[in-house]
């Protein structure tokens, strides 16, 4: 398990340019594996263009109470990047005027932003159809001041999407830290207690599964069935859907792949599993990702690689949906992660 962010350790992979150098070099530069650009060119999807904007994903800070082994954000308690209220005001303007139907708050642990609750209250008034908060669950049990989060979420009809790497203690704690499993179970029970995940409650509770290592996720429906059975039988927990997400070779997961000598095999696995049918629905085509400091990206992964949108509108303060939608999406080899197998997005499989 990681204990510090790459940034805090001064690791060379904390720098996005170094990550891009790896992703664009080695087995790809040597021609052993094809560039993603060439693969999507074969099916006429290069340059990749946006479709209708549906999702605004806002990263309100990289601070987190966990230091997960696979985190592509390189989030952790030592990360101080936090969205200010001023940037939140700019986001609220956009939320009120956007055609997007989904607002997706992420982090770090978004709840750790001191203005999180204020932002949720204001954003909830904007009439967004699906208002998501991505919670790591343990934050609900991290400190007394967070204990009422389930009630707070319920009050604002927030759609909670929670990380849950596995239904066994061993696998979850290995990826996320000792004690994470028990706290997550307790948090899920508390969410259930206020109505989340219950049939007919209207309070949506979905789980996110991502592999605890250098392999791709299996069939999402089969995994969901296994999770539902185990969590119900062992802990009387219910939830709506499970989203299987592929780990992308960015930040700490890239560091892990290299350190464990799995990088090459993993990239082979991603390229071999490339599914042209997934390309049309990759999340960057219907999403704009906004960073804690207001910069705009095609997706959360490009945000972490500091690949800002290829548009003259690059910051939330200049936001213009029409201008933004007329852009080419920036891609690199990490994009194989979103097109492998059944595809992967923040909402699970796409093909």
């Amino acid at each position: 398990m990681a204990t510090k962010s790459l940034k805090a350790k001064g690791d060379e992979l904390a720098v996005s340019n170094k990550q891009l150098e790896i992703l664009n070099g080695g087995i790809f530069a040597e021609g052993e594996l094809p560039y993603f650009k060439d693969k999507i060119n074969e099916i006429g999807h290069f340059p990749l263009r946006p479709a209708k904007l549906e999702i605004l994903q806002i990263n309100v800070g990289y601070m987190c109470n966990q230091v997960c082994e696979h985190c592509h954000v390189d989030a952790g308690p030592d990360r101080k990047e936090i969205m200010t209220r001023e940037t939140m005001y700019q986001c609220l303007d956009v939320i009120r005027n956007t055609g997007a139907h989904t607002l997706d708050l992420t982090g770090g642990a978004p709840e750790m932003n001191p203005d999180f609750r204020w932002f949720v209250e204001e954003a909830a008034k904007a009439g967004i159809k699906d208002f998501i908060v991505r919670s790591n669950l343990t934050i609900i049990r991290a400190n007394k001041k967070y204990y009422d989060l389930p009630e707070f979420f319920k009050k604002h009809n927030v759609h909670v999407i929670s990380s849950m790497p596995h239904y066994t203690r061993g696998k979850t704690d290995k990826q996320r830290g000792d004690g994470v499993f028990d706290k997550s179970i307790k948090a899920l029970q508390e969410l259930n207690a206020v109505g989340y995940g219950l049939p007919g409650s209207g309070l949506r509770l979905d789980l996110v599964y991502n592999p605890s290592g250098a392999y791709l996720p299996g069939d999402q429906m089969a995994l969901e069935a296994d999770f539902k059975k185990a969590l119900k039988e062992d802990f009387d927990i219910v939830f709506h859907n499970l989203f299987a997400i592929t780990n992308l070779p960015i930040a700490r997961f890239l560091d892990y792949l290299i350190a464990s000598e799995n990088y090459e095999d993993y990239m082979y696995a991603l390229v071999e599993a490339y599914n042209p049918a997934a390309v049309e629905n990759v999340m960057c085509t219907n999403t704009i990702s906004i960073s804690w400091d207001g910069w705009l990206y095609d997706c959360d992964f490009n945000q972490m690689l500091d690949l800002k949108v290829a548009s003259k509108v690059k910051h939330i303060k200049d936001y213009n949906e029409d201008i933004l939608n007329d852009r080419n999406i920036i891609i690199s080899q990490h994009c194989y992660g979103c097109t492998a197998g059944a595809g992967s997005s923040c909402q699970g499989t796409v093909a």
Partner: protein
Amino acid sequence: MADTYYDPKDLRKFGKITEWSEELGTKFFDYYGSVFEEGALSAREKSLIALAVSHVVKCPYCIDAYTKDGLQKGITKEEMMEAVHVGAAIESGATLVHGVQMMNKYNKLSM
């Protein structure tokens, strides 16, 4: 030339066996693919059987492939090891059950 008979990277080339015998290779992979589809047994159950058999036939490529497949399917290490023990029990049982033949022969030849 690899220093050992087995090179993990060769597993990536498995599909290439079709190049030297397209008809038979294609038939094999079609059959292989069908075997591992969901059926009366779940894909999860089949993965565990394949992992056990991989050990019994001592195929390092298969062990790598079905360990990874098991991880992808959310199978735990405890379940995997139990499957290996099932394979080992059958394999050692197969050896030991021949002990009956040895005993029969011994008894037949002895006064």
